[in-house]
């Protein structure tokens, strides 16, 4: 394998957690709920999955634990923003602060432990295509899963009745409620789905990407996932593109740091964050103000009887 191919491979691994977390948040936001707790749910997913994987020596149980942690965190968020109609921005932020703290408690006993790499699945014939073959058809299950999930979510949102219900609730919850659509129930499940995806993304970070746990290892990826949803204008297809651009930016800056161009490493470390701001800026320049945002996004829902 050439260095070039190796770099491309790491780009796929770096992009996958961003894509998975952003897909979950996209569904949540399409139902009209803004959950800023992605970073916290991801951190909990990473810590719980790693703890479970090391304790039971099972990647599968680790992944399950990570997703469960994400779902439980999301359920807490749902209770506060749906049950109490609390402010969504504040509650999401609180969820992130809480998740980052709690993940430190969960993960602390497992600092220093390591997991073996997980198996890569070779798709016959296709993996023999030069460059692209190794890149996309000789990957781990999560990579295939994230691609499939992108397609499934795109189909669900545009081609199913349930997806239409979810979108209409996100566009205008008052009208949807007047039509008799179950606003709370749909949002509840959408929030839980978002939590499961964030937990899974965290599990991927800990079990596949780094294969160890360290405090604060999510390093703002949850926030970048949130930005990706805006960047993709709430469309799953664009999310895939955005996630890979950001994955590439992250990996390339790491390689640039290793190559020592004489640029301070901190400048390169700042690239993903600055790129996020730049991407949001360019998007606003091109399309005007927040095109594609669900109409009821972030507005607490209280039916007027």
């Amino acid at each position, binding site marked *: 394998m050439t260095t070039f191919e190796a770099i491309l491979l790491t780009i796929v691994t770096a992009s996958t957690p961003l894509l998975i977390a952003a897909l979950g948040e996209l569904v949540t936001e399409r139902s009209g709920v803004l959950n800023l707790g992605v970073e916290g749910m991801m951190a909990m997913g990473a810590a719980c999955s790693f703890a479970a994987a090391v304790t039971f020596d099972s990647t599968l149980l680790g992944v399950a634990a990570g997703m469960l942690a994400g779902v439980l965190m999301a359920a807490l968020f749902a209770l506060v923003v749906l049950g109490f109609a609390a402010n969504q*921005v504040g509650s999401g932020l609180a969820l992130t602060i809480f998740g980052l703290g709690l993940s430190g408690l969960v993960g602390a006993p497992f600092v220093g432990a390591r997991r073996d790499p997980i198996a890569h699945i070779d798709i016959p014939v296709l993996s023999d295509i030069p460059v692209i073959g190794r890149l996309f058809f000789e990957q781990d299950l999560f990579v295939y899963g994230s691609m499939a999930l992108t397609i499934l979510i795109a189909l669900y949102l545009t081609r199913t009745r349930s997806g239409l219900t979810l979108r209409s609730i996100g566009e205008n919850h008052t009208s949807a409620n007047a039509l008799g659509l179950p606003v709370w129930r749909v949002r509840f499940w959408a929030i839980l789905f978002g939590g499961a995806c964030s937990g899974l993304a965290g599990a991927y970070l800990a079990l596949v990407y780094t294969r160890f746990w360290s405090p604060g290892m999510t390093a703002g990826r949850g*926030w970048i996932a949130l930005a990706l949803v805006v960047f993709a204008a709430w469309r799953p297809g664009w999310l895939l593109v955005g996630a890979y651009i950001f994955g590439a930016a992250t990996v390339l800056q790491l390689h640039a740091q290793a190559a020592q161009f004489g640029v301070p490493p901190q400048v390169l470390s700042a690239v993903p964050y600055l790129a996020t701001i730049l991407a*949001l800026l360019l998007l606003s320049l091109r399309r005007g103000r927040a095109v594609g945002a669900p109409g009821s996004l972030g507005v607490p829902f209280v039916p007027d009887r």
Partner: protein
Amino acid sequence: MRFELTPRASVSPVMRALAPVAAFVTAFLIAGFVIWLMGRSPVAAFDVYVLQPLSDPWSLQELAVKATPLALIAIGLSYCFRANLWNIGAEGQYVIGAVLGSWLALRTHGTEAGAWVLPLMLILGVVGGALYGLIPAFLKTRFGVNEILTSLMLVYVAQLILDYLVRGPWRDPKGFNFPQSVTFDPSATLHPVLEGGRVHYGALFALVAVLLTAVILGRTLFGYRLKLTGDAPRAARFAGFSAKATTMAVFAISGGLAGLAGISEVSGQIGQLQPSISPGYGFTAITVAFLGRLNPIGILIAALVVALTFIGGESAQILLKLPLDLTQAFQGILLLCVLAADALVSYRIRFVTRGGGK
């Protein structure tokens, strides 16, 4: 069974005042449960977290020291939150304020410069924080970029800038390669209010900010304008208040106060620049602002209460071997409880059995 929210016709002021207290008690019970789950005694933890710091004069001073940055930042944030604008990058504005103010301290190091150094450092701190806070505000007003994400991303950038400076150009050449600047000269140090005490003049800045804000919010047109912009943006437009000008103003105010908190902490408390100059004050201040119900006096009380969790957390780490992360988790849960309690004040909760009312 599920429950349903109905808006209350009138909100009693007693409930409004009691909501944060109820939230705090709830958060404490949850934290106690978590500590119990971890196999420790919640009673012992309560003793270490709350009772011991409050019964020890040294800790009481420490309380004021920790509450100072929290109150300064939270007061600034209350301007933003009142106008329904989300500056969540106070941590970055704090760092940049500290960096810009420290630049002068390092520049004048060992030059016998006069008494003008310290005031100018503080002003630079305010300017640095305000300018850094204006970046997301400018991007929002000029290009419609969401301020939540940009202000947060800039926190990471600010921390990297500080990291670069203390490991690179600003590192103390005689510091055995430790990533830290030289220790500030006495002329660049914010002195204790009482001789030999720990509480520095930053605490007075916080008190002044509280009082000024109480006057501005309660007695001036600007205060009314913020309230209107937050509660009824359309009405604010009809009244001729420019939303853009309001956005720039509140970000400059909150950034400036965060910057002042940053330079006060470095010059009054730490005494030099290090890679880390805050245990997350900028984020915790969000909890403080809401716990204080965005009210200046409330924020002052909330800052002292939350500062207690920092001090309690430090002693619990030593005495009970409870990790510091517990403090952060508690602060997160506390904010969730506060926001939920706020909702309880404005809505009545009714339990409905299945089938009854949609």
